[in-house]
């Protein structure tokens, strides 16, 4: 226990002390903040564009072949009708008009042609926005009913209730976001932990520390502590990533126009959550242990690279059959993917999210993943011990599986 704790402390502390770790960990939230800001500025600019229709004070010419443009709407926005599209374009080119809109006979299938005087990269977008808005407002005026417009625009609300065979209400749709988040966390772990696991398991060989380390500490304790340390570091990393998201949600919800996102409608189904969390943890454990076995058998992280690709692709592979997994969960292929250890995590989490994973299936998947993770961990420890002195070559599978006295 003392060795385990010593290695664990050393591994966690040295990672958290590294500037590179914090740069890497903070890169994601910084990216999220930048994207959020762009979205915020984008939504502001969309709002501005809408507002521009009212106080857009640029004059434009237009030709309406559709017969849908309301003259008073167009006039109110600064438009003057003309007869010839060529004349309209020429007027813009010569500088006598600021913009020209050519509404085709069938705007539903043909594009509105817009010509405008260049102002700058941002303001040039207003011509298209105003051209569309004039047509939309004209149609709205033609219909004459905000209610009908709202219905046509899909602004209707549906409260659907589906019933299970036993007559109880199914909350699959409402619970799905939780399942999807758990699936996303699995992929996050796959992406974030791959490289660190390889570095952690090959570092001693690359630095020629293996002999000194293994005469001072037992390999099982070392490898177990290293993997647990990675888990702890991974949690810190996830925390760093999620912190700005949570802060952003709490502080900037209104500005980011996320107010419509009603989290209260999400249902936390106890079975879905429990199965999902356990499948996620067991899936991550199997993934880490598998990569550790590969890393421990390889002389360097670089040499393990090819095998790593396979280890990363296996959890992702079921996504290619996502449609089949969702629509035909009982098909033999989906059943095989559900219970094959290296695809079980993704498949079971996806099925769990859409409510097609039975309780017994979930329990079996957790057991399969946990047993596979334990076996892979034992294999990783064996590879760490037997491969510790293999500075030049990859340890063969046969050597790894052979029992020794």
């Amino acid at each position, binding site marked *: 226990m*003392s*060795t385990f704790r010593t290695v664990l402390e050393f591994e966690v502390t040295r990672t958290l002390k590294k500037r590179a770790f914090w740069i890497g960990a903070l890169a994601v939230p910084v990216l999220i903040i930048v994207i959020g800001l762009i979205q915020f500025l984008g939504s502001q600019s969309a709002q501005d564009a809408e507002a521009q229709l009212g106080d857009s004070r640029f004059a434009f010419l237009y030709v309406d072949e559709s017969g849908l443009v309301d003259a008073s709407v167009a006039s109110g926005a600064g438009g003057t009708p003309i007869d010839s599209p060529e004349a309209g374009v020429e007027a813009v080119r010569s500088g006598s008009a600021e913009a020209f809109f050519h509404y085709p006979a069938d705007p539903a299938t043909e594009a509105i042609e817009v010509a405008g005087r260049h102002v700058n990269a941002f303001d040039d977008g207003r011509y298209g926005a105003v051209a569309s808005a004039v047509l939309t407002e004209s149609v709205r005026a033609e219909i004459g009913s905000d209610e009908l417009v709202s219905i046509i625009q899909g602004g209707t609300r549906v409260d659907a209730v589906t019933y299970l065979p036993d007559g109880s209400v199914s909350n699959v749709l409402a619970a799905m976001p939780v399942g999807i988040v758990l699936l996303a966390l699995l992929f996050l772990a796959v992406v974030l932990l791959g490289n660190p696991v390889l570095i952690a398991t090959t570092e001693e060989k690359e*630095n020629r*520390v293996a*002999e*000194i380390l293994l*005469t001072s500490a*037992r390999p099982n304790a070392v490898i177990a502590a290293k993997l647990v340390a990675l888990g702890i570091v991974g949690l810190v990393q996830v925390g760093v990533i999620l912190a700005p998201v949570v802060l952003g949600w709490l502080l900037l919800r209104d500005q980011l126009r996320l107010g419509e996102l009603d989290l209260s409608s999400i249902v936390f189904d106890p079975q879905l959550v429990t199965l999902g969390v356990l499948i996620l943890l067991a899936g991550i454990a199997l993934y880490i242990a598998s990569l550790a076995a590969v890393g421990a058998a390889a002389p360097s992280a670089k040499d393990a690279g090819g095998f790593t690709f396979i280890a990363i692709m296996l959890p992702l592979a079921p996504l290619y059959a996502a449609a089949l997994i969702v629509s035909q969960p009982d098909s033999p292929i989906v059943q095989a993917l559900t219970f094959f250890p290296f695809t079980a995590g993704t498949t079971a989490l996806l099925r769990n999210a859409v409510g097609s994973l039975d309780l017994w299936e979930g329990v079996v998947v957790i057991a399969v993943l946990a047993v596979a993770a334990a076996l892979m961990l034992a294999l990783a420890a064996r590879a760490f011990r037997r491969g510790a002195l293999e500075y030049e070559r990859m340890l063969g599978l046969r050597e790894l599986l052979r029992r020794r006295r």
Partner: protein
Amino acid sequence: MTALVEVRGYRQAFGGRTVIDRLEFDVARGETFGLLGSNGSGKTTTLRALLGLIEPSEGRLTIAGSRYRPGGVRVGYLPEERGLYKREPVIDVMVYFGRLKGLSREAAARWSHEWLERMDLAEKAKLALGKLSGGQQQKVQLGVTIMDDPELLILDEPTKGFDPVNQRILMDIVAKQQAKGTTLILVSHDMGQVERLADRILLLKDGRARAYGRVADVRAEFGGKSLNDVFLDVYGAPAVGEFGEVA
């Protein structure tokens, strides 16, 4: 004297090829034992098997009566392939290994600082090990090897790559450990050094013992020759003429 290290019927095979065959020897408590042989004769393999780093194909290799396990007998090992965590601060690496060897954090830190002070490296304690010169890294490595006051000190080609200053430090360490009664296994190509330091030797060739016993007895067995000449007798020195002349 009782044996601290016992090797009985040791055979080591890799991929079906036997590299060490029926090896038997003891190392008594408190003695300095020279393990000799040319490159590839099986010295390092024997030490690795003794320390449980590789599993023997046959035979029994024990330290204090049982197979070596970390946490048992205190062993200081300076391997031929040596290195430490280059990106970590010197003091962190030393304390880490001290704790793995069973010292408390405080004791490991105190010992490490004292060692660095003695080696004129006190101001480098917080630097990444990789930023130290090769010679300074060797000093740190030596400190890690002896920091838990080992009962058995195993030095595999200890002077390999060491500059003269560090060779001197190493010899001081060896002398102090001998005076304290530490058991010492020394693997070296420097026959003069072994002759000066070792009580007994084992000379390996192709994985088999070719000479074993007290230094004086081995020399007598070979007609009073020096260990260097004994080595040349066992391995055979090719005459320069065999290589022919460059046209």
